[in-house]
């Protein structure tokens, strides 16, 4: 079974803090993704990576950065957390290739910024 794990299920931070969310997958997937989920908006892509040290902006990258130093690990960084970044954050991974790139998701991190 594919396993995607995220470092925390729940996180509470203060405005202005630097926040790190970590995601690890054990299936040797090339692609990794960070989404945020908000009610009524579905999932929106923040950043994705198709290889080590490679990253591409998604639909809502402002206020976020990412790091992928190893193939299995993809980190999301909130440089200076703000209250409008309170959300559920979901990590996903997949193989590359149109017929094989089903995304598999981690359990999510519910972040609250006070």
């Amino acid at each position, binding site marked *: 079974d594919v396993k*995607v794990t995220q470092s925390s299920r729940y996180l509470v931070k203060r405005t202005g803090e630097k926040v790190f969310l970590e995601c690890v997958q054990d299936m040797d997937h090339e*692609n990794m*993704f960070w989404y945020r989920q908000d009610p*009524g*908006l*579905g*999932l*929106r*892509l923040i950043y*994705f990576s*198709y290889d080590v040290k490679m990253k*591409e902006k*998604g639909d809502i990258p402002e206020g976020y950065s990412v790091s992928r130093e190893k193939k299995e690990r993809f980190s999301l960084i909130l440089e200076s957390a703000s209250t409008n970044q309170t959300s559920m954050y*979901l990590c*996903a991974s*997949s193989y*590359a*290739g*149109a*017929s094989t*790139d*089903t*995304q*598999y*998701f*981690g*359990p*999510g991190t*519910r972040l609250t910024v006070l």
Partner: protein
Amino acid sequence: AQSVAQPEDQVNVAEGNPLTVKCTYSVSGNPYLFWYVQYPNRGLQFLLKYITGDNLVKGSYGFEAEFNKSQTSFHLKKPSALVSDSALYFCAVRSIWGKLQFGAGTQVVVTP
């Protein structure tokens, strides 16, 4: 640009009755379409996908989806709903680099 629409925020169904969750799509080229389910306080679980071939796709937990090119739809169906099917369902379409464009989600409530 690729997009999907889920026209219903919530679907209510009695246990044992058929369940349908609607999804329509807009893509250039051939669509790759997905359904995911999210149980409370959990990540998304893959249910099924359409890439090519048979228009009726069978997936996990007794779900299936029908691809209709002329109506640009990909509705999720289950012949007999269970209370445990109560969850949030997302339709998605594949974009370049394997990115997914998700719909807003449909909450399914199955009552005993």
